[in-house]
């Protein structure tokens, strides 16, 4: 084939990538959400389209209309209404929206895999006839390519005109800039946002339907293909539609042109991989090269504090008290983890996965939960750790001598450290969205260029593990896994306490503020990524030994997204949550059909909108509410002042729990004076943080009630609530004008002076 023929062959794929890019840009530019679920939606629509044509025998045009004009926009409208509107309403951070879109991705993957299975299908119908038009001489171009190209031009021009020339375009920009202010200006923001979503998901559906017939249709495969088109929007810096279109066509044509070359040796192999993976390489290169994406909303997408709600264990006496309370929980947890030792052999082998996955999840707790960096490439680290350790055990690594299995595992994990370090480098200057995409691209490139290459990943064999000459039985292996998990927990603990823990959390909470007092932000980020890489590598090694084989699919790029979502759902800064998440996924995978665990994680991720801080935080909140409810019911109703304490909304976006029982008005004879005395002190320092228990010295409590109240206060004090005493001016409620504080604030009336 000539260069021109190759170029023409590339146009079709390029046009589809361009359509996908347009869809992403439309959603981003109308809602400020980079829709990671684009791939999942595309795949779902493609499967439904195939189902209608192949299984139900509907005419293609009808199926196409249903899929593209009803289903696709319907998905968008539904997502906007149920998932993203609530997030926008409470001005959730870009990071939260990113996680929500990950949740949608995981959910759609779960649905697709749950209904149609993970197997591949090659009978996806094409909506275009397989004919071509003669351009000149022998050069022909397919109808599909022509129509696709036409669609790209029409959509790009139409959308460009709407955005630039119409009042609606102006309203779109206003809604993206500040949704609340748009509403205050009379702009129907919800409708604008919904229109953006519908348009975006329609493009996604179109992408899926067009892509499906060109490849084997598998849930993960097609999704990943669409995710690779993110290269296009990165080149466009999330803003320029023409750049996106041209990049899509350019990469695709270049990829096609590469087919005319053949090289020998290692270079040839690289070339072969490039011929089908240029998009993913472009994604990584562009992310490293493009100076700065034009992110919306001031680029606050680095703020992950919204889903990691807790700080470090406080130093000093409070921390010590809490540590003691935690021992019981730890003992119970250890007991549960040891339980599989009593299982039947097959069940025990299923349980092998739990500590392995737990370690991988812990590595994400380190990077995301503690140091606040979004990292979507953990599967790459895990896979590398696995691969390196097996090769080392096989004596196949850079000519190094074979090392016994167990030691090879640790060495292999340590060898991931440099990779983690290098991945951390982009994190120094990049934040949020850019960093998330960069780490994803690293994982994808490692997967394509290493895990899927026969040179690296074939001829591997796993010998039974031995320790000092003894072959490890199943039970011994599980105990060894627990030992590794314990090591991981130890590292996580050390990263979370003392000077190091405080410094890391400082970087997470406010990196500018951390730098301002001299915390070495750069080195801390590198440290987090490096340690995280090692922990993930160890987890990956264990994972391979649990399943007795190295399977590239276990470390596919999409796994990273799925795992990340799971970790966030169970509380990104909760080590216990990470292990529970691992147990949850493994249990469901063993008991239920394919895709169920994915589905469950997806649903939970979307529910995050209602429980910021993840499941762990939700559970903590529930316990607190329950305790308060109990306490309330043990106080004499006449003595109770169930007025919640006004507490300033914290910068965390997650409201501190308040003890609704610290009111003091109910106390006869004290209320009004106390209220007056407090009036001048409120919001003033030193804070009048009176012990919350004081008002109860007078309240009539049952002994049990008193104990409960004390417990609640202890708990509240140790977790996050502040006991701000309440003083309410009863006189104001009675309608009598009370002496108000004078404007200069210098002299206040009342008891204290």
């Amino acid at each position: 084939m000539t260069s021109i023929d190759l170029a023409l062959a590339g146009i079709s794929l390029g046009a589809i990538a361009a359509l996908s890019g347009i869809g992403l840009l439309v959603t981003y530019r109308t809602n400020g959400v980079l829709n990671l679920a684009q791939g999942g939606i595309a795949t779902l629509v493609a499967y439904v389209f195939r189902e209608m044509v192949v299984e139900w025998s509907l005419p293609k045009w009808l199926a196409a209309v249903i899929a593209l004009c009803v289903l696709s926009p319907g998905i968008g409208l539904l997502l906007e209404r149920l998932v993203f509107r609530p997030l926008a309403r409470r001005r959730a951070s870009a990071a939260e929206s990113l996680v929500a879109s990950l949740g949608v991705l995981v959910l759609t993957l779960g649905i697709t895999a749950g209904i149609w299975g993970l197997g591949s299908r090659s009978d996806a119908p094409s909506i275009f006839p397989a004919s071509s038009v003669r351009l000149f001489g022998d050069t022909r171009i397919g109808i599909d390519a022509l129509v696709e190209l036409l669609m790209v031009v029409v959509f790009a021009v139409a959308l460009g005109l709407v955005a630039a020339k119409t009042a609606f375009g102006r309203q779109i920009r206003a809604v993206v800039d500040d949704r609340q202010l748009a509403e205050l200006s009379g702009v129907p923001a919800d409708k604008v946002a919904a229109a953006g979503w519908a348009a975006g998901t329609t493009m996604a559906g179109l992408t899926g339907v067009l892509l499906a017939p060109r490849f084997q249709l598998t849930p993960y495969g097609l999704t990943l293909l669409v995710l690779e088109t993110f290269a296009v929007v990165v080149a466009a810096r999330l803003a320029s539609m023409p750049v996106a279109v041209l990049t899509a066509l350019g990469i695709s044509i270049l990829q096609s042109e590469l087919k005319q070359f053949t090289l020998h040796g290692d270079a040839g192999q690289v070339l072969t991989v490039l011929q089908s993976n240029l998009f993913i390489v472009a994604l990584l290169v562009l992310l490293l090269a493009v100076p700065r994406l034009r992110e919306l909303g001031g680029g606050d997408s680095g703020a992950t504090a919204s889903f990691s709600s807790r700080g470090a264990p406080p130093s000093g006496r409070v921390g010590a008290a809490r540590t003691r309370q935690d021992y019981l929980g730890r003992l119970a947890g250890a007991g549960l983890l040891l339980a599989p030792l009593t299982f039947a052999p097959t069940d025990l082998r299923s349980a092998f996965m739990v500590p392995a996955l737990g370690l991988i999840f812990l590595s994400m707790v380190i990077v995301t939960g503690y140091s606040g960096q979004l990292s979507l490439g953990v599967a790459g680290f895990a896979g590398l750790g696995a691969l390196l350790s097996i090769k080392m055990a096989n004596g196949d690594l850079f000519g190094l001598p074979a090392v016994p299995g167990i030691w090879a595992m640790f060495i292999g994990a340590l060898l991931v450290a440099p990779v983690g370090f290098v991945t951390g480098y982009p994190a120094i200057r990049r934040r949020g969205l850019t960093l998330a995409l960069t780490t994803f691209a690293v994982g994808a490139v490692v997967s394509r260029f290493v895990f899927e290459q026969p040179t690296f990943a074939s001829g591997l064999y796993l010998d039974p593990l031995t320790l000092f000459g003894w072959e490890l039985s199943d039970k011994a292996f599980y105990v060894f896994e627990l030992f590794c998990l314990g090591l991981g927990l130890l590292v996580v603990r050390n990263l979370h306490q003392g000077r190091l823990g405080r410094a890391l959390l400082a970087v997470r909470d406010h990196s500018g503020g951390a730098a301002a007092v001299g915390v070495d932000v750069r080195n801390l980020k590198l440290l987090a990524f490096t340690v995280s890489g090692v922990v993930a590598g160890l987890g990956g090694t264990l994972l391979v030994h649990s399943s007795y084989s190295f399977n590239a699919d276990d470390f596919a790029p999409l796994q990273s997204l799925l795992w990340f979502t799971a970790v966030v759902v169970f509380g990104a800064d909760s080590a216990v949550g990470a292990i529970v998440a691992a147990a949850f996924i493994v249990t469901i995978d063993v008991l239920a059909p394919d895709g169920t665990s994915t589905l469950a994680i997806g649903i939970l991720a979307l529910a995050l909108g209602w429980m910021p801080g993840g499941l762990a935080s939700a559970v903590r909140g529930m316990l607190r509410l329950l305790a308060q409810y109990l306490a309330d019911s043990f106080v004499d109703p006449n003595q109770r002042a169930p007025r919640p304490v006004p507490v300033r909304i914290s910068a965390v976006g997650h409201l501190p729990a308040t003890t609704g029982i610290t009111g003091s008005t109910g106390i006869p004879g004290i209320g009004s004076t106390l209220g007056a005395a407090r009036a001048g002190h409120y919001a003033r320092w030193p804070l009048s943080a009176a012990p919350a228990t004081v008002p109860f010295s007078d309240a009539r409590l049952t002994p049990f009630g008193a104990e409960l109240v004390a417990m609640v206060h202890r708990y509240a004090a140790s977790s996050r609530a502040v006991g701000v005493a309440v003083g309410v001016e009863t006189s104001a409620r009675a309608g009598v004008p009370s002496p108000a504080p004078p404007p200069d604030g210098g002299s206040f009336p009342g008891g204290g002076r």
Partner: protein
Amino acid sequence: MTTATAELRLADARAGYGTVEVLHGLDLAIPAGKVTALLGTNGAGKSTTLRVLAGLIPLRSGTLTWRGEDITRMSTVDRARRGLMLVPDERAVFATLSVRDNLQIIAETSGHPDITPALESFPRLRERLAQRAGSMSGGERRMLALARALLARPSVLMVDELSLGLSPKVAADLFGWLATVAASGTTVLLADQYTDQALAMADLVYVLHRGERSFVGTPAEFTHGAAATPA
């Protein structure tokens, strides 16, 4: 204060964020065509009150009536379109849009697509029409926010912390402008910390304290009340 002339009436309003209640049964009546000042310290509930009036925060209980009509459940967009205009204390302009677009948007939604009145009131904005609003200084952004509100031809203008972060001169200029708006018959509701400017303008003063009303009366009564108490 007489019931008949109340433009906006908030009765026994409770509202808050998440698990925290900020307003604990607040009663307010905003007289038509007058300037009402809503005073209080940080965290007294002033901003929350304004956000409730604009519909950004739903009421948990209580009612809001506007000229006798119950608008408790009306959406923010509808309130804005009917002339209930809030200028928030922060993020009061679209930072990524040009000054012209900022003005144009509100002019279009309010049905008077002509931005010249705003430019006449604030000539300085005329030079900046093509500039991104976010690149302007704090004072100019505040001006733009007020100019936007003016274009909407509001029947009730609510301004949160007019002077926040402004140099004294700019703040004084803006208060002066607001006085002329009030003189033209627009109902004005000003939330502020205790400032002389707000007091000087107001016909009626409310003081909020921790989400409840702790004082209502004229500015003179307010000043005397403060002076009469032992210091």
